């Protein structure tokens, strides 16, 4: 039973039930399809998902990781700190899309792009999820 699962594990994160991000990531679009019947689509999170979508090989991602790398304090000699803080402040607004939404974001990219070795017949009808995968207008930098 799922309720037993949470007792296990010391180092591993072992939730006793899947979060919405997990579910979006793992099961959305997966499963058997009954031919000739239209699926009801997921509603209510499209706005989030459009905003949230991220592409690994994108300038947006690069800037985020550049920022994260700059923020590291591994070579911190004192003089770096104000500069690091400055960089942090400047990027404050930009960072807002990366926290709360990252679960959904990764979930949807995972669900949409990263499927492999899936029988293609199961992927025919995905009406509303299209919204999540359409190339989104990124916020301009």
């Amino acid at each position: 039973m799922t309720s037993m699962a949470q007792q296990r594990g010391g180092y591993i994160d072992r939730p006793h039930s899947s979060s919405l991000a997990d579910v979006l990531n793992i099961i959305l679009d997966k499963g058997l399809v009954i031919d000739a019947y239209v699926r009801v689509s997921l509603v209510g999170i499209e706005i989030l998902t459009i905003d949230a979508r991220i592409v690994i090989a994108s300038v947006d991602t690069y800037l985020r990781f550049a920022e994260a790398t700059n923020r590291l304090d591994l070579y911190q000699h004192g003089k770096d700190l104000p500069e690091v803080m400055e960089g942090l402040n400047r990027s404050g607004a930009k960072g807002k899309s990366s926290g709360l939404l990252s679960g959904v974001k990764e979930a949807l990219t995972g669900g949409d792009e990263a499927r492999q070795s899936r029988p293609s017949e199961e992927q025919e009808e995905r009406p509303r999820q299209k919204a999540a995968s359409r190339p989104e207008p990124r916020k301009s930098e």
Partner: protein
Amino acid sequence: MKEDQINDMSDQYVYGIVPAGAAIPPGLSGVQGEPVDVLAAGDYAAVVTAVGDAESLGTPEDLLAHSAVLDTIAAAGPVLPMVFGTVVPDADVLVDEILPSMQDSYAAGLRRVRNAAQFTVRARYARDVVLAEIVAENPEVARLREATAGHSEEASHFDRVRLGELVVEGLRRKASEDSTAIVNALSPLARETVTREASQADDVVELAALVDRDAQQRFEQEAENLARKSAGRITFRLLGPQAPYDFVGEEA
């Protein structure tokens, strides 16, 4: 299993397929908070919820209910998950048309997942730890990090993009090594596996595994071992037992 005439006439939300006569855990809460029922025909039964208003289906709560129902069933016995959002117009369509026509397909599907459940392992880097590795290993990253540190984002835009690009490349390179080790450790304990590509630059791997019930403990133990060995550097999240979402349909 038909409750009454009204339910028969209702749209049926279909979670998945189980062998006829399979014991469904009691008290399941389905989509729209409604109870879960079973409609059988021949050797197989559909796990369903009669819904009054199919138009209002599809909320994130419904998605969670869909997975919770399927995973709870999967913890106890075999189930073939339907794709989220599957609704058929009434119980008769399911019992008289769909289930009878799909017997062979469901037989094959259930054979494939018999005595097994899915587990999903997601491994992700502890970002700062691995970024520090990359800075230490790649002089160009270290240089660009210094060069951009004191400057505004605008003033150092191109250096920042280049820095981020090198860092992301470094992450992907590390992930290809680390994910191989993870997949190699877990695959022998699984009947089948599916590896999904990273959806985030700091993902190591996401692995879906169809695990024999007999091997479940060993699989969990090995996942825990991996997490312990990588503690502080890679975080592991393990979901399951789940319905075999990645192992339905034609065999890969």
